[in-house]
């Protein structure tokens, strides 16, 4: 008996239509697993980065900037060059880690979205599976390569600015784009024809369970809050912060050149505080929107989470708590310092734990389908 003929009642959490869409190693299953795995890896990476790299890195950059202003006062141009070389090295380390974190999670979202629209992709299953594989290869290749940029540098590169890790990252991005173009062509073929979407899509989209409804409403509110915060930041702080950035740099060199080292040190400290202030606003804005989108996406796959209703609700509550705690306490870092940073990290951990819980539910769901499929063969 084929997978499509499985008939399990609702108590079992598995329906024939869901099983059909979630065929073993099919495009949809690849994308759901790949998507959740990418998000999980991206979040764990982000937490490790925030705790072990972000803050020590910022302190080291501040130290080198201070040393550079002292070198200005002493007229030591060689030392300036050394300190800026190290600052560039530290900034590249930070930037590539942020890019790795962001791209892993964004590709995870995109994978889940592509899983969702599979019934509207009018291509043969084998081709959809190939496109899903292509997407996942690119989605792993890009962030891993970006992570390596800092360590590989320009070794053996034929170009002046771009190293092999960057080229590999660009190739990964190209694979993702090609896969998306392939899926878009499938959607176009679906829209151009008169095909009906497969039943599983309707079932996923019509999930009216408490868990799905709460994730949907909570996710939309998180996104709205993120937009309002972003608009507030852009309207009130963006241009003043940019002006202060250049102004403080000028104050550093002017005061150092005139021998006013305490004044130059004050400017370096103010510059560090400004960078921290900008970073927490941007992090809060991006995280609250990302968690909102993730909540909506997770609402769609609740039919695939094979857990009791009580446990599904628990994971939803834990997820939404973490989604609020992380951005709110990231913002409070400006006032409360590392205490707020620690609480924000706990918020991120709550989201990771909830995601792991849901992933276990999805694994149980697929295990059940596979077991029943095998038993009936």
């Amino acid at each position, binding site marked *: 008996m084929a997978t499509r003929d499985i008939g399990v009642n609702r108590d079992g959490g598995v329906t024939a239509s869901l099983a059909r869409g979630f065929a073993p190693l099919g495009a949809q299953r690849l994308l759901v697993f790949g998507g959740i795995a990418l998000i999980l890896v991206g979040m764990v990476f982000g937490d490790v980065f925030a705790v072990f790299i972000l803050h020590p890195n910022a302190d080291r950059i501040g130290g080198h900037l201070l040393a550079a202003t002292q070198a200005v006062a002493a*007229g030591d141009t060689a030392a*300036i*060059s050394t300190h*800026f070389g190290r600052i560039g090295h530290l900034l590249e380390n930070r930037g590539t880690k942020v890019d790795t974190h962001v791209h892993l999670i964004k590709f995870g979202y995109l994978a889940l979205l592509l899983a969702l629209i599979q019934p509207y992709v009018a291509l043969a299953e084998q081709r959809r599976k190939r496109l899903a594989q292509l997407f996942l290869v690119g989605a792993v290749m890009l962030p891993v390569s970006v992570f390596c940029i800092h360590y590989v540098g320009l070794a053996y590169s034929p170009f002046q600015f771009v190293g092999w890790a960057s080229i590999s990252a660009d190739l990964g991005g*190209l694979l993702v784009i090609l896969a*998306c173009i392939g899926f878009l062509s499938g959607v176009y073929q679906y829209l151009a024809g008169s095909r009906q979407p497969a039943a599983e899509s309707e079932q996923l989209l019509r999930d009216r369970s408490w868990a799905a409804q709460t994730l949907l409403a909570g996710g939309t509110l998180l996104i709205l809050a993120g*937009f309002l915060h972003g608009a507030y930041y852009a309207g009130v702080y963006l241009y003043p912060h940019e002006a202060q950035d*250049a102004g403080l740099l000028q104050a550093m*060199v002017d005061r150092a050149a005139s021998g006013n080292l305490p004044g130059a040190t004050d400017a370096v400290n103010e510059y560090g505080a400004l960078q921290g202030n900008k970073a927490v606003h941007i992090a809060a804005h991006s995280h609250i929107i990302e968690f909102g989108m993730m909540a909506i996406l997770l609402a769609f796959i609740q039919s695939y989470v094979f857990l009791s209703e009580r446990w599904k609700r628990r994971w939803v509550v834990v997820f939404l708590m973490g989604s609020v705690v992380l951005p709110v306490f990231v913002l409070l870092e400006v006032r409360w310092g590392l205490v707020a940073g620690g609480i924000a990290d706990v918020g991120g951990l709550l989201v990771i734990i909830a995601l792991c819980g849901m992933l276990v539910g999805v694994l149980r769901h697929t295990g059940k389908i596979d077991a029943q499929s095998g038993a009936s063969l």
Partner: protein
Amino acid sequence: MSASRKLLLVSGLALAIWAMTYGLWYAMFAEHQHLEGMGASLARAFTRAAERNMAEAHAAIRAYADTKFAYVRHVDVHSHWGGLALLLIIFGAIFDRLGFGERARFWLAAVLLAGSVIFPLGVILQVVDRSWWPTALAMLGSGMVTVALAFVAWGFARQR
């Protein structure tokens, strides 16, 4: 499939491809040069200050600020177009669940799409024109997305 869902799904996928292509172009042809330029300008500013050549030091800081202004906007545009594209696709999947008629849903989808294109476009135009109108365009686009989002939240609250 309703017209509003078609609009959101197709435009969302197209915008996602556009955002990724833009990011790829920027990473390949401009980002490294921008980063190198910022670092070089800043180092030059401090070196000239150490030589007590303050006019050149100030000019280097201005060059640094200009490059950073462009860099921040390029990265913002890539991430905002990409993020808004995901949002369009997400809503495209569930737009029929909004508690409004199809005509209202279609206009809401059109405002969401227009705002999602206009907002980052206004931001990137600030790089080539520092006058008021690119900022006004970005504000208009972000306002459209925010208002549409509030209506979507309301629509979900009274969903059928």
